[in-house]
């Protein structure tokens, strides 16, 4: 684990060295989405062969930052800048396309309205949601009353009624109060405070401040500059999937505020200069070249988008072979042993040739359609 040493000068002039634990370490996180324009594009992503040239969209283009214990970090930026994607990756809900993420501790994302089952009662929903978040029965029972009380008087009256009879504000109160009663090290809040009425909002902010006082690490996304100012010490400004600025709240927020206010007056080139958006398509190789000193593992794609590995291919071909032989042996009433020794006596050469031709034709067709598409794009 990496520690950060912070110098702290006290009133008497004695220098303390405070040790801070690293909580989140992100290196060159990227996230790529497929842009599916037609229904056939969706189908194509399922096929292991053939045309896979689907247009890509990079929501994050290499985001790096460190968050230490007790920090409360605000993430600001315009709509579609990649804030929510970043929070989802940090809370390990979605995996990044490439890059490295190290999280020391348990994260908990607060996003209202998620995970409520409308035909169960409020109480059942609380139990269900707590269970999904990995709490034990004893913990749930101990916290039940707190959760219900936090949600407010209106919810207390209806706690044993199905959630579908709740108003939308009440639903979000219920969801919010379940989540703030978890005990995570790292709290991730995605615009959760923007719902609910003023009294509830105040309650929520008070609770957040309490978390902060307890020394919990907080990551906070909001469009309200006032909220970020109140809660956060550090701010990361993200635009077009890149970090524009990172630093203390007093330093970054005024600049972001100014950018936001003059946004519509600026020309596109001016905006792009501030947000570091080059405008051209992003590739991982580009990121690699821009950071030649970093290790290679930061810039290679993760497992999820990779094709079958050779082990998988071997296992699949072996299983296919066994399957076809056994079926043939079964139909021809021969023993498996006989089939293994004389495979050609079970399956005629003609069938093998026909099968081979079909496979080759499929591969060729896949290659040809890909070439056609490329030519089409170039025209």
């Amino acid at each position, binding site marked *: 684990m990496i520690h950060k040493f912070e110098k702290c000068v006290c009133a008497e002039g004695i220098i303390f060295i405070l040790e801070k634990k690293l909580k989140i370490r992100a290196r060159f996180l990227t996230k790529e989405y497929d842009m599916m324009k037609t229904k056939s594009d969706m189908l194509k992503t399922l096929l292991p062969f053939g045309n896979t040239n689907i247009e890509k969209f990079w929501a994050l283009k290499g985001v790096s930052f460190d968050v230490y214990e007790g920090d409360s970090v605000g993430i600001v930026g315009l709509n579609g800048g990649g804030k929510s994607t970043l929070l989802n990756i940090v809370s390990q809900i979605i995996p990044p396309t490439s890059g490295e993420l190290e999280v020391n501790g348990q994260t908990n994302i607060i996003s209202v309205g998620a995970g409520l089952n409308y035909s169960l009662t409020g109480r059942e929903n609380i139990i269900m949601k707590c269970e999904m978040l990995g709490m034990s029965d004893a913990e749930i029972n101990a916290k039940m009353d707190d959760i219900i009380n936090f949600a407010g008087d209106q919810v207390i009256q209806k706690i044993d009624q199905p959630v579908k009879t709740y108003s939308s504000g009440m639903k979000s109160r219920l969801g919010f109060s379940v989540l703030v009663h978890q005990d995570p090290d790292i709290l991730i809040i995605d615009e959760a405070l923007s719902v609910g009425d003023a009294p509830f909002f105040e309650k929520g902010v008070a609770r957040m401040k309490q978390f902060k006082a307890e020394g919990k690490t907080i990551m906070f996304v909001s469009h309200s500059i006032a909220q970020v100012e109140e809660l956060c010490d550090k701010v990361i400004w993200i635009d077009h999937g890149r970090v524009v600025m990172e630093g203390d709240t007093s330093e970054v927020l005024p600049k972001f505020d100014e950018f936001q206010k003059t946004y519509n007056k600026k020309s596109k080139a001016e905006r792009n200069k501030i947000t570091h958006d080059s405008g051209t398509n992003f590739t991982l190789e580009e990121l690699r070249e821009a950071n030649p000193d970093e290790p290679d593992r930061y810039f290679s794609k993760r497992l999820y988008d990779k094709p079958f590995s050779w082990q998988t291919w071997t296992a699949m071909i072996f299983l296919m072979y066994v399957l076809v032989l056994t079926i043939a042996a*079964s139909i021809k009433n021969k023993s498996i042993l006989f089939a293994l020794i004389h495979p050609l006596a079970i399956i005629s050469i003609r069938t093998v040739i026909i099968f081979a031709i079909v496979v080759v034709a499929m591969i060729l067709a896949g290659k040809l359609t890909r070439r056609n598409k490329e030519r089409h794009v170039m025209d």
Partner: protein
Amino acid sequence: MKEVWLVIKEQLTNLGVINRLAKYDEKSTFQAHILGNIWQILDPLINICIYWVVFGMILYGNRPMDGHPYIAWLLPGYIAWQFMRSEVLGASRSMVSRVQMVSKMQFPVSTIPSMTLANHLINYWWMLGITVLIELKYGVYPSASWIQFVYYFICMIAFLYSVGLITSTFTVVVRDFHTLLNSMMQLMFWVSGTIFNMNSNNVMNSHPTIMKIIQINPFYYIINGMRQAFLGTGWFYQDPKAMIIFWSIIGLFLIIGSHIHLKFRSRFIDYI
């Protein structure tokens, strides 16, 4: 192969949560019904009565099947079919209907098909209890052969989970798939020998190749096996070819299923 272990490991570490959430699921499905969960058993019972009357009494004229009354022959296979059918259809919709719920928490999405499985399993145990009672009434008593139930039960779970992984992913991406699956299950019902005995059919016996092709079907393997287990007409190791065919199909399904599941799981939200 890494993907398969990853997916299986997620199931094993989350077994407790899967079971508890399945119960809540059942509760919410029949929340508005007066008879509640009883419907889950009542519905198949009505179907069984229909098949008993139409096939057992009218078509087969109360002729014994493999030496047992029709109802005793029908039940072990039919309840397995009923469970598999509802599970396959439920699992294929499970991801679409539940991904919203788990989208904002760290919840292993690969357990969603298992949740449906655990949910339907509750009904299966009830139906199994009823079946054993009826078997006893018709003179089928517990024997060593009943041990085979454990083997075929494992087969059934492995098959249903691997199919569930594939179909749930497909349904998220292409919603039409669920409708297609529904029609395919209609076909499966007739070719898997759930309600009539293919082994004692003259037409089938004169075309052994057709019979061999039908036997490739994993549904047939499980339904036939369940019958074997309860009625004591054979042992699972007596047909190694069928066993190899079945398990290599499961292996292929599992590899393909976990591969496409992992390929798409980060993007499920985008498709809904």
